[in-house]
């Protein structure tokens, strides 16, 4: 039995993998009984209890982090230094090369400054992307939604939207690009608007709307967009777009249980008083607002 082939026999036997012939041979071994006893008894061994629920709770209470490399140094000073150096490097690189994103969720506005101190106010439910690298020579940003810009003097400042482009030198203007409607208002200076093949130059107080290819020129009297002062001004806007805006401003969901009206609305609606806002729409469109939850409104026919 003390040969090397026993090697396999014992472990095979423990795993119940012996053939009948091999098993018969092994049973003839004088030590078989002892092995059999060891096998039987070790099948009834126990380890101390393991409280897995408690440990799991503790584990998932930790925050997930972004992937890191394998720890190479046991010395904590090395770790700290390495993290600082890498972190600083990444931050510098990211700041220069990576796309910066500014976002305003529904129900909130977001005011921020660009590297040249130009000011941007994002209206609710809007997003802006731009790159910090070489900003002064390349003032380009991409807008989804609506924003007001107060541009510092400098090289060409360009706002790109899905619907069209707005280029300026130094001025204050508002851009709104939602669905099929592209709305640009100039509050100071001069703004160049490109929509498909059309180019329009706006000066102070002028406004242009492109909706489904149609161009509407209007003018404004206010020195700033109304939405900065908790109001939204609509200019020949349809009900669907007005409700979309209210949903964004108040972060609510609105349903209309009648056929969409094609009447266009021109006027102002507050963004800090939902009940008043709903009442204005209700009166204009002869609807009955029903607040079925704090953030859910259904308009029904009166």
């Amino acid at each position, binding site marked *: 039995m003390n040969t090397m082939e026993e090697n396999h026999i014992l472990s095979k036997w423990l795993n119940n993998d012996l053939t009948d012939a091999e098993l018969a041979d092994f049973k003839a071994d004088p030590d078989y009984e002892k092995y059999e006893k060891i096998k039987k008894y070790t099948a009834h061994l126990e380890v101390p209890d393991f409280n897995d629920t408690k440990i799991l709770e503790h*584990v998932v209470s930790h925050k997930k*982090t972004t992937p890191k490399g394998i720890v190479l140094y046991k010395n904590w000073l090395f770790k700290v230094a390495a993290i600082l150096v890498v972190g600083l490097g990444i931050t510098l690189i990211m700041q220069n090369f990576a796309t910066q994103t500014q976002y305003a969720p529904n129900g909130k506005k977001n005011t921020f400054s660009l590297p040249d101190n130009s000011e941007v106010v994002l209206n609710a439910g809007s997003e802006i992307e731009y790159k910090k690298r070489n900003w002064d020579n390349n003032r380009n940003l991409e807008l989804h939604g609506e924003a007001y810009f107060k541009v510092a003097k400098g090289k060409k400042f360009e706002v790109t939207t899905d619907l069209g482009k707005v280029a300026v030198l130094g001025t204050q203007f508002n851009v709104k690009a939602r669905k099929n409607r592209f709305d640009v208002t100039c509050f100071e200076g001069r703004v160049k608007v490109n929509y498909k093949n059309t180019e329009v130059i706006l000066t102070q107080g002028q406004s242009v709307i492109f909706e489904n290819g149609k161009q509407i020129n209007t003018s404004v009297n206010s020195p700033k967009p109304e939405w900065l002062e908790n109001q939204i001004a609509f200019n020949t806007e349809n009900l669907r777009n007005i409700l979309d805006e209210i949903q964004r401003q108040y972060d609510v969901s609105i349903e209309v249980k009648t056929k969409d009206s094609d009447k266009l609305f021109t006027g102002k609606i507050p963004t800090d008083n939902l009940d008043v806002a709903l009442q204005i729409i209700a009166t204009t469109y002869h609807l009955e607002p029903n607040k079925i939850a704090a953030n859910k409104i259904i308009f029904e026919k009166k």
Partner: protein
Amino acid sequence: MPTRSLSNTCDEIMFSRFFKSHAKSLRNFLFYKYGNKDHADDLTQEAFIKLWQNCAAVPIEKAKSYVYIIANNSALNGIAHQKVVLEYEKNFTGSDKTNENPEFILEEKQFKSKLLKAIENLNETQRVAFLMHRIDGKKYSEIAEELNISIKAVEKRMHLALVELRKQIDSIK
């Protein structure tokens, strides 16, 4: 539309399921190695915390070898080995329950304690592999995967463990 996360390991349900099926055997593995239950619990917890924190980088298929590697590495940092104290199941009395001869009962009792002693005295590699098979009921292939050795090596450890246990039981008086 639900966004797909970087790795399914970050999904709490997937993670919990993985934890439930592997945490205990990882803990037991560490216990067979070091003989200290609290320490084994701590190392297990640490390994799973690391997995959770790095879930985005470790897909669930790789999670098992990940936690074993982490547990093994952190265990390297000078832990005092203790004797692996095991017990028999409460209702296990012996292989032959019909024999009530007092002499036989005494012999059974002696054999049981000799066996525990012999397991304590096994060398670490043999003991770990042997107990993973006997207590956790793992296949040789699973043991090989978790210890990062070949199946042949597992078979060799099993064999040597059995021979060693038999010899020790013979020699303990």
